[in-house]
């Protein structure tokens, strides 16, 4: 089917980011941009600095050099809560859900920032707090419907298989109705079928809600299929940036992934 999406202006611009932990340079002068409405992938072998890059974008790490511009606002360091309030949501490489809580409650936490009532009112569940809860519940139910997880609505997430937990985590990020969604290895450890499902949800999110997506992925074939543009990192350095076909043909990328194969 033809691509009907509109790729807009630059939403996020990363310029000259460098990050080191002691003597280890995790990121070295990285620059790229993300346009509104696109699926942008960051790939690279283990230890390439992919997760560090995401952590810089949502303000969890503070890079020593460089600046990040999001929605026209430039800052040297993002703050996690500001990033969230500005419309950035993310999922984690190692699932970070509340294991003892139900799927529904976990996704509900994604609405937390948007709740205005104080916790006493919420505890009393009275008047405006009750109305608010109902509005938020509606959004959450839409997410549940979208991700087709009705059957596990009330199941504690600790009891769910890994692939479903990943889906719940995506649900929590979606519940925040983000403009920019950061996905850290959404398909790691999944079997073929689960990967296909996840790809479909990512594309649907992008297509139906127009959400801009930055995803990190290990699996080259998946990335090449679903992303519009790809950044390749290796040992904290940027190897390539371009559309999948360009990247695939890039000799540096081939070498980094497969080792130097030419004899």
């Amino acid at each position, binding site marked *: *089917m*033809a691509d*009907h999406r509109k790729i807009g202006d630059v939403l996020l611009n990363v310029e000259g980011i460098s990050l080191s932990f002691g003597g280890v340079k995790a990121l070295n002068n990285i620059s790229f941009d993300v346009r509104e409405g696109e699926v942008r992938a960051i790939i690279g072998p283990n230890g390439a600095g992919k997760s560090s890059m995401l952590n810089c974008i949502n303000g969890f790490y503070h890079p020593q050099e460089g600046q990040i511009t999001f929605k026209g606002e430039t800052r040297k360091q993002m703050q996690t809560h500001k990033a969230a309030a500005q419309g950035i949501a993310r999922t984690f490489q190692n699932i970070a859900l509340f294991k003892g809580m139900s799927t529904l409650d976990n996704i509900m936490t994604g609405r937390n920032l948007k709740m205005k009532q104080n916790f006493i009112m919420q505890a009393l569940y009275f008047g405006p707090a009750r109305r608010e809860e109902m509005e938020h*519940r*509606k959004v959450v*139910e*839409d997410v*549940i*419907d*979208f991700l*087709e997880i*009705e*059957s596990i*609505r*009330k199941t504690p997430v600790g009891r769910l298989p890994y692939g479903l937990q990943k889906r719940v985590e995506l649900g929590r990020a979606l519940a925040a109705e983000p403009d920019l969604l950061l996905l850290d290895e959404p398909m790691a450890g999944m079997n073929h079928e689960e990967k296909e499902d996840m790809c479909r949800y990512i594309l*649907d999110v992008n*297509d*139906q809600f127009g959400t801009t997506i930055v995803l990190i992925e290990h699996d080259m074939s998946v990335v090449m299929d679903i992303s519009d543009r790809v950044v390749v990192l290796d040992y904290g350095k940027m190897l390539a940036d371009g559309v999948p076909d360009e990247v695939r043909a890039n000799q540096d990328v081939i070498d980094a992934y497969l080792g130097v194969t030419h004899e």
Partner: protein
Amino acid sequence: MAVGAASLGGLDTFPKLLLENARIRGGRPASREKDLGIWQTWTWADVAGEVRAFALGLKSIGVERGDTVCVCGDNRPHLYWAMTAVQAVGGIPVPVYQDSVADEMHYIYEHAEAKYAVVENQEQVDKLLEIKGRLPKLSKIVYRYPRGMLHYDQDFLDSYADVQVLGRQYDQQHPDFFEKSVNQGIGTDTCTMLYTSGTTGRPKGVILSFSNMIDTAQNNIDLEKLTDHDEILAYLPMAWIGDNIFSIAQSYVSGYCVSCPENSDTVLDDLREIGPSYFFAPPRIFENILTTAMIRIEDAASIKQWMFRYFMDVAKRVGLDILDRKPVSFTDRLLYGLGNILVYAPLKNVFGLSKIHLAYTGGVAIGPDIFIFYRSLGINLKQIYASTEASVFITIQRDGEVNPDTSGKPAIGVDVRIEDDGEVMFNGPGVFQSYFKNEEATHKTKTDDGWVHTGDAGYFDENGDLRIIDRSKDVGKLTDGAMFAPNFIENKLKFFPHIKEAVTFGDQRDHVTAFINIDLESVGNWAERKNIAYSGYTDLAGQPEVYKLIKECVEQVNRDLAEDSNLSSSQIHRFLILHKELDADDGELTRTRKVRRNIVSEKYGELIEALFSDKTVCPVEAVVTFEDGRTDTIKADVVISDAKTLSPASSAIAAE
């Protein structure tokens, strides 16, 4: 016997019944569906409005009297309404199994000459788009849920809501068209056409008239005293005759409410929330519910386990008699009452069966243990013998006269007779009109005076209850001349919770052998408790411990068979556990999950030969088809195991 339509005073079609229901019980609930986690209810008046809008919408997109309209999707109120809407404008709705692969759909759409399709969602639309090029007659596709279809701009696609908008406009311009169109319909018109899955050959389109459906529904309502206060959960395929009777015909005739589950994975939760009073389930559902409960009991505290065992023994001893209103001693009554408070009622509540006053099962034989388990809890579970060609009911077990081994007495208005060769035949108000475009098959199945061949062999016992032995055409002979009834043996095997499916071979052979499919959930749970690691079905099926487990089941069956002098030759000498589950997508089962014997024996010829040789291992490759039509191969070495057999009518063990 009273025949329904006459007593309904001219209300001889579903659209007429709908208008009547809207008039006399307009405020009572008619349909329910869980949407975004909340049950939504439509009253009869609401439904009449929705159907009217959709019917006129269909009219304005071009549906004419006599057109066939295929309906496909999970159980959704809107799809049920679509069927009535099609009937209201004189069309013929043809429900199609929602999990059919594109090729199967193509056959039905082409054979039924469908001009329109009303489908549930993107998945179904995609399947149709794939085959639309080969269906020149198909002119419009209406879909219920627009999700994921933002960019589908083909002009033959319309959303359900848009069609209803057109319908409301049409209604303003032609305010009396709907009533006129409804009144044009009569009882002898075709109500629906159902494609039988067919264990052999291509599906056949069974034409049923409104009178077939309404009279059958009415007779059963009279027998079981169903009212508009009953509740039912519609979760079995809409293309299956049972759903058409239970969720449509009987609801329209008696006015009860039909609830649709949120989706196919939530059925058991929805069952608990709705608490139906009338329920149909094939044996495998009752087995699943029981298995889930037993697994949980195993994990419960020991005092609870003790309580469960003690009171289940009480129930087993006196529960059936209490349900059948037979005399029971005062102490036992007291114990049963206590058990009800402590165990039975909470258990039924967990199953969602607290309010049940009538439950049916049928299709295949149900294990006597399972059957008795439910009945002893006070759930009035009864077996029926049913067929699409009969509009469901041929025989029904009667209250107070339930014998687990029989299918009961002929339904009201239905005559059953046994032919000289043992074949069961029936005649009655529900007998189908004909097979669509298949004169030859119609003549083969239905005599000129309306008697229908069932193809099943059976007999009436001393109480006048029908006992079905097997499909007549499946009954064969071993080389020593003894009768071989494969279904009978397979059912015995399937009564074990660990065995999901079984196929036996023996016709024109020296002895009997079997293919087994293990039940992944049940055996998987067993393996977990035994600390046996496995990666999936194929791996688990090949484990030596699993073979040992299944061997015990097979040998138990052999012991049972040895006691019956007619069947002692049918003991299973060798068996194997198949490396993949038999699946409808691979054509091995019908959509109603009956084994297609000829296809299985064709596909696994090597394995069958290996069973009748002395090999102990046989390498195989099998092709599996995914729902989207792609295929993949599974390779495995299948182990073949011997089973102990006993010499007839003695306990001496014959050496294998």
